[in-house]
């Protein structure tokens, strides 16, 4: 049994066939090396001219086209009828096309995204609940790394249909801080203090000037919007430092962050009901009164 199989193999691998197989292996190896050299050469040549996405597109186009050409060379060397194969490929293509609608949708979306250029590698984007740095923009998907070091793959078709925020597109941004202060706070003094805080923080840009908006009369206090501009790389430095500065300065200046509270009034004509703080310890009951009540002592 084993001998007959060996005999069959020996008969199959004739000298001519062996030569052809070795030729195919050599052509495949040389072809892939050539493709690698060609794509890296073109990448090097176009690096300064094209963006990273276009560079990737050109590289992939070279690699895929080269691979297809190699395949045809190999098939013709092996004696496969290419014309018949191309005819069959048409039918297979339709079948594969139906089966891979999602992939095609992602691929076309990828091409649109590359041409539209809403982001670049290294940008920080926000898609749905995810915020992260773009690692790669591929034909089918976008890969991002979140700030807690998770790797997320987002299909291109989803990106095309979803609202996307490019956080670092522009070099400067504004940090909006909502502050609620008590009704007794002197508004002009508060504005002066906020401007001083912004002026003393090195990460806060002097220009554009900080924004202070008297936003709303709230239930417990007055709400202000304090907007400070910063360079995009300084987000965390600014946020941490300015929040701490606001808290410390407000405490030093006696400006309160009000807790929710109610003012109780009996009716429109009377002043608010006086409220008195009661200590935990109950006052001792007068002895005489107790005596008289139970009548025993």
């Amino acid at each position, binding site marked *: 049994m084993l001998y007959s199989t060996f005999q069959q193999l020996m008969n199959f691998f004739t000298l001519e066939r062996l030569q052809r197989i070795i030729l195919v292996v050599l052509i495949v190896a040389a072809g892939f090396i050539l493709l690698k050299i060609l794509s890296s050469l073109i990448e090097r040549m176009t690096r300064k001219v094209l963006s990273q996405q276009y560079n990737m597109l050109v590289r992939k186009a070279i690699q895929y086209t080269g691979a297809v050409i190699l395949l045809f060379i190999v098939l013709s060397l092996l004696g496969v009828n290419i014309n018949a194969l191309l005819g069959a490929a048409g039918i297979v293509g339709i079948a594969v096309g139906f089966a891979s609608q999602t992939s095609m949708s992602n691929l076309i979306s990828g091409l649109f995204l590359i041409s539209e250029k809403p982001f670049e590698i290294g940008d920080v984007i926000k898609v749905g609940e995810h915020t992260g740095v773009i690692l790669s923009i591929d034909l089918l998907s976008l890969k991002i790394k979140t700030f807690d070091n998770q790797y997320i793959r987002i299909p291109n078709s989803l990106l095309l249909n979803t609202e996307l925020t490019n956080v670092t597109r*522009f070099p*400067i941004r504004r940090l909006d801080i909502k502050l609620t202060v008590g009704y007794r706070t002197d508004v002009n003094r508060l504005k002066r203090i906020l401007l001083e805080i912004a002026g003393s923080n090195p990460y806060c840009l002097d*220009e554009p000037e900080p924004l202070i908006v008297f936003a709303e009369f709230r239930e417990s206090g007055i709400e202000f919007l304090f907007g400070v501009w910063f*360079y995009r790389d300084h987000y965390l430095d600014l946020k941490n430092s300015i929040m701490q500065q606001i808290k410390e300065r407000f405490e030093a200046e006696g400006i309160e962050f009000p807790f929710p509270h109610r003012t109780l009034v009996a009716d429109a004509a009377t002043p608010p009901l006086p409220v008195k703080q009661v200590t935990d310890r109950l006052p001792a009951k007068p002895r005489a009164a107790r005596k008289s009540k139970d009548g025993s002592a």
Partner: protein
Amino acid sequence: MAPARSVGLHRKLWEPKEIRLETWYHTRIGPLDAWIKRSQADWYLTHERQRDREKVQPRPVPLHPAQSSARVERLTWTRWVAGEEGNRVQFLPVLPDRSVVIRPRYPLNVPRGKDVLFFVNIPIWVRILVGLPETVMLCELPTVVLSNTWFGDPITGELCYSLKTRAMRDLKAVENHAYMATCPVLIRNQAPSDLDFQRICIRVEHLSVYQGETRLWTNRVEVLFRGEELTGQITFNRNVPGFDEAAVPLCPAREPVEKSLLKRSFFFLKSLTGF
């Protein structure tokens, strides 16, 4: 004007010094206190900055062995691996690494056809060099941490430092501090209208620092204004500033001015001058 006694100290600040092994050396340049030590294998450096301007000691202290290491012990040190470079240390004044937007406390009005020269004091950075004959730069420390500002529109502008100062016309009125370099700025208004400017961006990366008789100087900056709609021209004078005969070059510009700078400058000159 600085007292005669501290004039020598100003010069001594920037002189190279051989230091002993395993000994902390201290220097004070305006609000900046810096300590440096060389061990057999490493260089150690630490610093502290006085944030309250009122408390800044006006008298500079050149590099000297520190009396006590108690203050150093509570600070965070930075360590560099030492090579064969020897024990020589030199502190050099250098201008900030980004352009500085000068915001005069009182806007300056330049009548048409007039030239106005004013002086601004720019806080220097201190470059720490070690070794001889080949010097190694350990780091650069700003004497004053300047606030950031944005110059230009929010998309194409640039990040600069902001400096609120008095643009003094009279040199005698310009404060003299060891941690400041005086920059002479000449504005030539050749526009048909008066020029009222609120701020000016000085590209300090193209300016060198010079040691004068009593103070540090930078090259003179000349701004030619031809009107809001026309491009201006900025020239960085390459020579020693003429206000101090004894001024000698101390530290070259980070980006020395090339011939092409002016040509390149034309497209952004309008935003550069901020008029």
